[in-house]
């Protein structure tokens, strides 16, 4: 019995599948007529191939249906960008508010010389009314705009009374009047026109500023409150948005 070569089997296998060129197929057909071994091999291959095609076909156990989540698509595609935008806007707003707050604080700190000056006489009053205290007070008084505004919050009736009671040697334009502390609370615009002959005249700007000081203090307090509440609300909102995003990401 003649054994078939690998090439013979390869050609026979391809012939079975109709994958040979016409010339090759004709060659195999000629040999098949003459070689029973080749015929039997072809029968075996055909039988196997036919039976392999009859092997049971399995039903897919599930649909394999894809969902947007499985392929990385977001169902609410508008939600995430909207959340991100809101977070960014809120973060920027928070930074801006904190910046305003910081600038306001820095402004108060830069003008803090005045409050210190205003407080100095009060502390000195307990001991000795020193020359230094008078000098400082004079310096503070000589800056009416800054001193009045910056010192507005810190100014106390006691300090005003002290200042009023204290003669200011350096101040040659006017002399502190013996004004009781109550007088500081009442605007005395007419005092600025007091004749120079009167030695004890209240500071020209001081009584006028007192009302402005209060208004400025109120305004400042309101502004600070608004800033603080804005910071709190924006911070809470940011935390909420972060929580929602983390939850969305699971």
């Amino acid at each position, binding site marked *: *019995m003649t054994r078939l070569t*690998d090439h013979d*089997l*390869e050609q*026979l*296998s*391809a012939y079975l*599948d109709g*994958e040979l060129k016409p010339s090759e197929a004709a060659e195999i057909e000629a040999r098949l007529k003459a070689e029973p071994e080749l015929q*039997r091999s072809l*029968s*075996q*291959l055909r*039988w*196997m*191939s036919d*039976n*392999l*095609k*009859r*092997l*049971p*076909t*399995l*039903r*897919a*156990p*599930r*649909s*394999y*249906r*894809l*969902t*947007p989540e*499985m*392929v*990385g*698509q977001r169902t609410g595609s508008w939600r995430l960008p909207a959340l991100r935008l809101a977070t960014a806007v809120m973060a920027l707003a928070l930074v801006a508010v904190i910046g305003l707050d910081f600038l306001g604080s820095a402004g108060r700190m830069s003008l803090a010389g005045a409050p210190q000056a205003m407080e100095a006489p009060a502390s000195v009053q307990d001991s000795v009314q020193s020359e230094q205290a008078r000098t400082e007070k004079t310096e503070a008084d000589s800056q009416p705009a800054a001193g009045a505004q910056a010192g507005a919050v810190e100014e106390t009736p006691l300090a005003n009374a002290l200042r009023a009671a204290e003669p200011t040697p350096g101040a040659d334009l006017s002399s502190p009047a013996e004004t009781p502390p109550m007088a500081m609370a009442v605007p005395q615009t007419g005092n600025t026109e007091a004749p120079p002959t009167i030695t004890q005249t209240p500071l020209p700007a001081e009584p006028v500023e007192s009302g402005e000081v209060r208004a400025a203090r109120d305004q400042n307090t309101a502004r600070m409150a608004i800033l603080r509440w804005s910071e709190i609300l924006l911070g809470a909102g940011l935390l909420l948005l972060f929580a929602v995003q983390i939850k969305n990401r699971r």
Partner: protein
Amino acid sequence: MDESGLIGDAQRGDLEAFNRLIFAYKDQVYNLAYRILGDPLAADDAAQEAFISAYKGLRRYRGGSFRAWILRIVTNACYDELRRRKRRPTIGMEDLNPLDDPEETDSAGVLAAEGGDPESEAQQAELARALEECLGGLPDEFRLVAVLVDVQGHDYREASQVLGTPLGTVKSRLARARLRMRDCLQAHRELLPAAFRLEDEAT
């Protein structure tokens, strides 16, 4: 089914169109994975992974046989699984074939077997198990080409597209796979036709 229309829609992000393609090919994809891996659970995973990969890589599809393209993706997923198994050899192919067990054949969800031997269904089932066993015993590259051409009926061209190999390689691998199958089936002589028995008598 307007396949090219569905493919176009899916490429533009229409997941529903792709799901219709999945519906059309799910059995072929699952069966190929099952024949390569011999394990229904692993085949199920490979099929799902293949469909996800196919959708994500749909822009790379440049026409031609969509079936060959998607079968190639599942074939690659199966190769990955086979490589993983070789790194952690715990289960043999023979242990994984549920069709070896008649009770499990029902639970595997067998679609209607084509034709069938009118003489005896039991004998046909036994023959099927013998063929499954021999098929499962083939080296991976031979088994794959035998599954594509002999079991699933693809032509050489499509098989070469699925495998990413030249036509000549398909031809030679298939011939070797068939030769090995024939030798393997000698262990089940009682199931073989006269053509096989004659060879025994001759040798």
